């Protein structure tokens, strides 16, 4: 089954919720909808499911126009953020419930329930009721119920958001394998860039009801087509600096003038935005930078430490540069005192470069490797 959204828009009482979205989701694929709360993830899923009809545009399944066809006639399953199960039924009966509604034979039901339970590691708990299970197992039950229908389209709306961090990690690791074993189109909404990366598949980044980019997840992450995509698909937040290029120099907003290097050397004069991910920012104290880094082609900027966060293996350094807040993720434990002056180092080969309209300028080949 393929699902196609063709210039789909949704307005409610004049307020636009979904703006001109076109997507083609292939059979057997995992598709992540990545965006902040209220970006339109749930609205888009409701359109895909047929719970709402689009204001304009068409929805096609397998090439057949299904715009306006009710959800009941489509082959759709959904998993929500809340763990939705029948509290009085056993896990077995919970998973079996859509099959009983469909009137399947007993042997068939048993076979399907057992295989879904096995896939989600629920086999030891089949005779318990959901409330006697942990949150992770409750959500596994809900996912099993969605899978057992063998629906053409399975929608998961932030299914791990209410789980403990470690349980989330565990399920996140298993989900791609579980999805791969069925032939359905999976759509998975999340607010977390890391989750999108771990799930893989394809990702559509959403901002204010519009899809800013859609493509293979790793590619969207490494080569964002525009600044909004890079911002949405970045955790910690993307460091974005506005610069003006004039001849062979680059003028930063805080007045620093640098020689134009890397991708910046090849673009015409004008205003650009440099995007640098946190783990691509280097930070050194001023003396070390003077001593060891002269003339190695790195962009160097002065900043002061605002906050340091140490995770034990890595450190997040939040720095102020004029009115800008920069975040760097550096390996090891670096306890720098607030107010300390530092040099921020940017490798020009690892920047994302955007023009004044926010469109990406094709990156130098090196940047793609990082």
């Amino acid at each position, binding site marked *: 089954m393929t699902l196609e959204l063709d210039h789909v828009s949704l307005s409610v009482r004049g307020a636009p919720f979904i703006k001109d979205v076109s997507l083609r989701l292939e059979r057997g694929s995992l598709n992540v909808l990545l965006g902040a709360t209220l970006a339109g993830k749930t609205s888009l899923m409701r359109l895909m499911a047929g719970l709402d009809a689009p204001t304009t545009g068409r929805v096609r399944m397998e090439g057949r126009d299904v715009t306006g066809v009710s959800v009941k006639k489509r082959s759709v399953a959904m998993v929500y953020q809340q763990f939705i199960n029948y509290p009085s039924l056993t896990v077995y009966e919970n998973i079996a419930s859509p099959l009983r509604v469909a009137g399947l034979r007993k042997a068939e039901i048993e076979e399907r329930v057992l295989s879904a339970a096995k896939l989600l590691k629920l086999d030891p708990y089949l005779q318990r009721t959901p409330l006697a299970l942990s949150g992770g197992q409750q959500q596994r039950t809900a996912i099993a119920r969605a899978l057992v229908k063998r629906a053409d389209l399975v929608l998961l709306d932030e299914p791990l958001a209410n789980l403990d961090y470690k349980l989330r990690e565990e399920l996140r690791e298993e989900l791609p394998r579980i999805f791969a074993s069925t032939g359905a189109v999976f759509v998975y909404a999340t607010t977390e860039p890391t989750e999108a990366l771990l799930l893989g598949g394809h990702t559509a980044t959403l901002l204010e009801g519009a899809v800013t980019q859609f493509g293979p997840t790793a590619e969207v992450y490494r080569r964002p087509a525009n600044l909004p995509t890079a911002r949405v698909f970045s955790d910690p937040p993307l460091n974005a600096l506005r610069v003006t290029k004039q001849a062979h120099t680059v003028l930063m907003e805080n007045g620093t003038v640098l020689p134009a290097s890397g991708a910046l050397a090849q673009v015409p004069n004008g205003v650009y935005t440099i995007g640098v991910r946190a783990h691509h920012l280097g930070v050194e104290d001023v003396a070390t930078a003077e001593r060891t880094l002269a003339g190695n082609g790195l962009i160097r900027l002065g900043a002061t430490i605002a906050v340091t966060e140490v995770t034990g293996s890595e450190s997040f350094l939040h720095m102020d540069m004029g009115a800008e807040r920069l*975040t760097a993720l550096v390996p090891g434990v670096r306890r720098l005192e607030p107010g300390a002056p530092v040099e921020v180092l940017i490798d020009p080969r690892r920047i994302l470069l955007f023009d004044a309209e926010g469109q990406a300028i094709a990156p130098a080949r090196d940047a793609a490797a990082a």
Partner: protein
Amino acid sequence: MASITLDGLAHAYRPDPRGPQDYALKEINHVWRQGGAYALLGPSGCGKTTLLNIISGLVVPTRGKILFDDRDVTRLPTEARNIAQVFQFPVVYDTMTVRENLAFPLKNRRMPREAIARRVEEIASRLDLTSVLDRKASNLTADAKQKISLGRGLVREDVAAILFDEPLTVIDPHLKWQLRSSLKELHRALDLTMIYVTHDQTEALTFADTVVVMHDGAVVQTGTPEELFERPAHTFVGHFIGSPGMNVLPAKVEGRTAHVGDVAIALDRGYSALPRGERIELGVRPEFATLAAPGTGLPVKVTRIEDIGRARIARIEISGNPAAAMVPEELSLDGDSAGLTLDPRQIHIYADGVLVPGEAASREGAV
């Protein structure tokens, strides 16, 4: 301002606790220093919320005492303790403006009007709420509402400690960074004791100077983020902290060599007196396990490689035991066999889940 002492604290929800299994919170002794930034980290049901409720005065413990400085507050109600709390879901008074919300605790304590106004302005500017002071609190975003909850605690000059109960649950990832940074800045500026309860290791480690890890109603380790990362006192801590968690492999240890299946691993320390009959395991964090070309280091089988953007993580098998390791940027593999190098100083041995210190390297051992 105060330090908070937990003295032999234990709690059972049933009235006649018999064995330790009846206790939601097993005996705990701990001092929260004045001005410290603490995190209470553990999975759901580990007892961290019970402990938080005992500190805030919503639950009276079955045994033990809780002291604010030297004052016994075990039986004092919430309002008589100088604490503030920020909850999982933002609590704001819907009908009031932001200004009225912030003034509320002071108004209830009958502070003079001019003093209230001054204090509210001061706290609002600290929290970046000045521009929304006259808006209805109910119309703001979740992160602004959490700031208001926090602000209602901060306006009180007598507050000894601020308790945070998973305050970032409903906040989007981008705003989490901002809110967390402003929390840290506030902590520095105001010298308040802050206790942050969470199941999210990143939040706990980045926020706190000292992290208290809880498991099954008991404290399993208290330490700085580095200590928890580099020397987990328990395999639970190793697993729970770190993403992915520590690799824990069943092992046989003889002197300074560990055997995982048929793979021999050299150790930095000696373990001659390991307890007999206990489950012996080897723990090493993925960060200290690096994948290499086949033939280098230990032979392993690669099952999958995950790309998390800033790094690649390999899922491997060492003699059939699943583990994780880092993949260097320049390494590219054909097929599923690879080599693995471990940092010997970062390999730990556990007996029944508990860290065994081991004998130091021979030169120091001679002293």
